[in-house]
């Protein structure tokens, strides 16, 4: 369907997922104003919120299948496959972490029904980050998300660590936002626009005296986003924040907040600044290299499982940056594929951590999982698949994701960073494997050491489905790879000659045929 944003009805259709979520978040606010004393209220709010997420996802799929696109160039929000794909990834992460949090908040005695409204507000912000066609929309989305997540980090008022996490996140987040905003201002100064498409045109024809301004703007933008995705050397806040926040919030931050920030970053780079790839490509190269090396080495040194996962998510930010280095649409599809299954595996790992731990899970070590395979084989298997997928082992979707990123980098002529990626992956085996080792190869610490390791049946069911997806798409990645490629088809302009081309025509009959000129054809 063709949407014309001059028309109110089309505008509403084009923003349907965002509108649904906003309305739902307000509904939840009303709900929690009405009922917030009983512990039931929180649970109700949780399921209600999940229904909203599912509805929004349904709307997204409907729009994608209906091949919704814009009449003319996108000036405020984009209506393209990249938006749908990233929206679905974000909603998946939000939904999974909501299911996690319902049982968790109950167990930890955090009776705050507003939690779920906050999650939805954060989700709205994230959706605007990935759909924005204007730097200011992206910035507004980012702030909406960030403020909500600051609150979520500190939602456990009785925990000092939680408060510390919220404060740290807030201060450094504000700092990053300032950088970002300044960068946007400089870009506006250099090109006279904040609209990505126009920026893309203008950036290619910047006069010599404005070049410095443009570059400085890009640099500021990089600092801002590097903070948000916790890329080294702007990662200092991440471990403490991840560690102190309630674990479902940590899962949300490690998977989905990161996904949204990356989505926005990728869009800005590929849609707005593609012409400058030879300059920011090199910066991104070093950022990716440092993030992979430092993230993996620090993760290796952790004893606490939660901290290990926090640092490993930094390492994964590095892998995702590698996908963006060549600045090709193939990079964007690699990155979408990677993000989806990274979300599954990360949330899965945090779910197992929640099942095992108590009081914020800060002191659960790898050895606390010893012998889990004997007490609860299903849970151990879920964790093992998550670890193998995060490690990027063949047979899991994590491997295909990593392979795709490697292919993008190698195909774009960046072999060195690909080599660095695989070498740092080997380091990651040093902390993922001991988890498997503890579960399968070490005896239980004592007879009842897993007596209170419980995962609610719903969560278990959801995780089994997620792990099934990880394995199935690890073996038959064709369909998901295709969707990921469609998802990147909006980025037509490609500054690098060597794109990750594919040999054979696409399977026929898909509702969204690739536009001509895309390397997929």
């Amino acid at each position, binding site marked *: 369907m063709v949407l014309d944003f001059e028309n109110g009805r089309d505008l509403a259709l084009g923003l349907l997922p965002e509108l649904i979520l906003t309305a739902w978040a307000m509904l939840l606010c009303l709900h929690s104003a009405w009922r917030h004393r009983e512990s039931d209220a929180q649970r109700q709010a949780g399921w209600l919120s999940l229904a909203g997420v599912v509805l929004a996802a349904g709307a997204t799929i409907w729009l994608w299948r209906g091949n919704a696109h814009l009449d003319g160039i996108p000036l405020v929000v984009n209506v393209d496959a990249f938006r749908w794909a990233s929206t679905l990834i974000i909603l998946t992460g939000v939904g999974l972490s909501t299911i996690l949090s319902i049982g968790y908040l109950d167990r930890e005695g955090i009776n705050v029904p507003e939690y779920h409204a906050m999650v939805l507000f954060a989700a709205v912000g994230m959706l605007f980050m990935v759909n924005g066609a204007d730097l200011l929309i992206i910035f507004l989305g980012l702030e909406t998300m960030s403020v909500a997540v600051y609150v979520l980090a500190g939602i456990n008022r009785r925990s000092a660590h939680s408060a510390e996490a919220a404060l740290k996140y807030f201060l450094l987040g504000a700092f990053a936002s300032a950088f970002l905003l300044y960068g946007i201002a400089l870009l506006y100064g250099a090109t006279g626009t904040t609209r990505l498409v126009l920026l893309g045109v203008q950036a290619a024809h910047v006069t010599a005296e404005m070049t410095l301004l443009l570059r400085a703007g890009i640099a500021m933008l990089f600092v801002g986003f590097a903070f948000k995705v916790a890329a080294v050397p702007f990662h200092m806040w991440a471990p403490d924040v991840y560690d102190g926040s309630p674990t479902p919030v940590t899962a949300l931050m490690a998977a989905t907040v990161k996904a949204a920030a990356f989505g926005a970053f990728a869009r800005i780079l590929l849609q707005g600044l593609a012409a400058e790839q030879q300059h920011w490509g090199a910066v991104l190269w070093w950022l990716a290299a440092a993030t992979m090396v430092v993230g993996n080495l620090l993760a290796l040194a952790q004893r606490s499982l939660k901290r290990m996962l926090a640092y490993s998510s930094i390492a994964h930010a590095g892998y995702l940056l590698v996908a963006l280095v060549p600045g090709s649409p193939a990079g964007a599809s690699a990155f979408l594929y990677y993000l989806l299954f990274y979300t599954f595996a990360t949330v899965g790992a945090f779910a197992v951590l929640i099942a095992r731990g108590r009081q914020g899970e800060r002191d659960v070590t790898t050895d606390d999982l010893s012998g889990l395979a004997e007490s609860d084989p299903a849970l151990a298997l879920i964790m093992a698949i998550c670890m*193998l997928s995060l490690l990027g*082992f*063949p*047979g899991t979707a994590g*491997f295909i994701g990593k*392979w795709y990123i*490697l*292919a993008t980098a*190698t*195909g774009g002529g960046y*072999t060195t960073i*690909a*080599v660095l990626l*695989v*070498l740092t*992956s*080997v380091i990651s*085996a*040093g902390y993922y*494997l*001991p988890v498997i*080792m503890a579960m*399968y*190869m*070490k005896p239980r610490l004592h007879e009842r050491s897993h007596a209170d390791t419980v995962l609610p049946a719903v969560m278990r069911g959801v995780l089994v489905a997620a792990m099934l997806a990880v394995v199935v798409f690890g073996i*038959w*990645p*064709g369909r998901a*790879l*295709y969707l990921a*490629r469609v998802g990147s088809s909006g980025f037509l302009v490609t500054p690098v000659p*060597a794109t990750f*081309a*594919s*040999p*054979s025509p*696409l*399977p026929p009959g898909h509702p969204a045929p690739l536009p001509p000129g895309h390397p*997929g054809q």
Partner: protein
Amino acid sequence: MAAFLQSIGYEHWILTALLIVPVAGAAIVLAAPAAAARSIALAVTLLELILSLGLWVAFDPSLDGMQFERVIPWVGTYGIEYHVGIDGISLMMVLLTTVLTPLSVLGSWAGITTRERGFYGMMLVLTTGMIGVFVALDLFFFYVLWEVMLIPMYFIIGIWGGKARLYASLKFFIYTMVGSLLMLVAILYVYFAAGRQSGGAFSFSLEHILRHLPTLPLGTQAWLFGAFFLAFAIKVPMFPFHTWLPDAHTEAPTAGSVLLAGVLLKMGTYGFIRFAVPLFPAVAFHPTVSRIIITLAVIGIVYGALVAMVQPDFKRLVAYSSVSHLGFVMLGLWALTMQGTQGAFLVMINHGISTGALFLLIGMVYERRHSRLVTDFGGIAAVMPAFAAILTFVSLSSIGLPATNGFVGEFLVLLGSFQTHPAAAVIATTGVIIAAAYLLWALKRILYGPLEKNENRGLTDLTGREYAILAPLLALILWLGFYPQPVLRRMEPAARAYIESAQRAAPGAPDVAAREGR
């Protein structure tokens, strides 16, 4: 027989069946009660063996190139295929695998008493992985199997292994992973290079890449070869990449050791034959590289043998002897003569049989005595005469006594390498002598002399099951010792193809065809 096989379309489905049967068997094992696990695993591996025996008959030794080929698109848009096929050397490796797996299942019959379902399930998945590596002709498919195989072996060592099993399994995993991930980058590099050269036809098919790979600058080729080399050299293992091997072999349960030594090590040398050398002959046989590899091979032969001599643990001794034997394989492959290559192929088979048998024998005595230290034994030939006789015989075959399989292989390697690298061949010969020293010395201390230790007086001789395990291996040792011709004949086209591929881009290399009179 051949006509019957043809009538059932054997050549179309056999390789696929060999890959699917073990995995399906693993699923059955996991679903069945634990007590039945070992019987099911035995039945599945025997079925696999029977199915694979048809390959011996149906394989046409007069044909060059691949047979039983099968191509099914997998991820079409990226040119990834399920592409399988075998030539002579793959044939032998597949048969070696299918022979050794039922024997290792039988060898674990009494030794594995915990989590049987998991163990036999892993064994079967491992079987699929091993066979897959030997039949894959698509680089992506090969890579996936090469890696996937790590997991079952990791668990087999880590769960059912000895005291230091955690350390050994992690070391095994990480060593292998370092090499193979770099190989993945190299695979992607040649994929793009060949794809661009062919005008946009991107495919991971080995044949396609070999045909279209442009002549890259020698420096680039050297890096790419280096990545493949590292992956395969760690697996072989070549000196100095061998340090994971003694730990892994010693800590693994009997079946794990048998398959590690018998099959997994061959994947390294097979990788050189199938991928590294044909893709980058100019580097592989560049005078400098060739000299380095031959030097490392010879060091491996002598060093492995010398270190084996001083091992107090018999299993560790055999593990180090593998380093030495695989050195012969590498020497034979780099000699670039018909005899050397054929010898190397033969040593790959022989080492699987002899070392597999040695590990099985060690497992048998370990189950009785719960020790592998050479000094804990002495004179047990008095209480276990049949065991002593068989261990002596197998050791002699491992040393390379004429009329056993070991002799033919190592003799051909030495003969072949003497023509092109006489100095290396002479030093390598000392490896054979030291092998005699360490094995005979160990035998003397374990089997012969007075029976002094009281714990050893009660040892019982081999049981019927153990005879059943050893009999096929003994028969193979004798058969290959006296009449290796049928095996050599089947491997000959593969050996010739290997040498031709090596000479393709290395005009300076010795002209083998002329010397062999072909």
